[in-house]
């Protein structure tokens, strides 16, 4: 499973992407957030305000935090977009 981070979330975590093996009980976005926060204070800082963190599963925006991660290959976390 590939995790990708952008903008200040990337800066707080200290890396742009990583390969991880998720524990079996980490099967939704909500549980992913909990698991990430348990991995250290850089992750806690990045997810300090989880409501502002946007999520894309295999490059598609997903709002519902109960969405299943089954079959997903790439998860991206990033703040609200500021393009244009």
């Amino acid at each position, binding site marked *: 499973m590939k995790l990708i981070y952008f*903008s200040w979330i990337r800066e707080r975590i200290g890396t742009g992407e990583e390969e991880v093996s998720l524990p079996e009980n980490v099967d939704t976005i909500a549980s992913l957030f909990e698991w990430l926060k348990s991995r250290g204070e850089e992750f806690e800082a990045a997810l300090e305000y989880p409501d502002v963190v946007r999520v894309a599963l295999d490059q598609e925006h997903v709002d519902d935090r109960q969405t299943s991660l089954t079959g997903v290959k790439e998860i991206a976390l990033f703040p609200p977009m500021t393009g244009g």
Partner: protein
Amino acid sequence: MTKAIPDIRIQAEDFDISAEISQLSEGRGDIGAVVTFSGLCRDESGTLAALELEHYPGMAEAEIKHFAEQAIERWDLCGLIAIHRYGKIKPGENIVLVIAASSHRQAAFDGANFLMDFLKTHAPFWKKEHLNDGSAGEWVAAKDADEDALSKWDNRES
């Protein structure tokens, strides 16, 4: 009629608006209106040295394409180009270009305006400021006004 195919590019390089318009309209007799939007880097009253634009490769193209196809469908556009730059961009330089071509003027205006509103809020780009005084710049915060701007495309006949 065959639907127009949007031309989406994410690039570091600048663009030439006249050349892009020619590419879109050359040899066509059905285009009556071309609207371009270019977004430029402001200097924020002289405090800004540059903006640094980060993006999510792959998803950026796909998201813009998704909304570009909606615009073509909704306003029956003859052609639609969107170019978004990434990397370091100085005040006065171009950041983004949208060009919408149509038989009629309001469709061209609306198509370009719609795509810009969605690009601002849905395309995975993030801007970081580099300041002139050398201090570490902030990541530009998303504006509620940009989110609100989307509502003008709801439930409206075009």
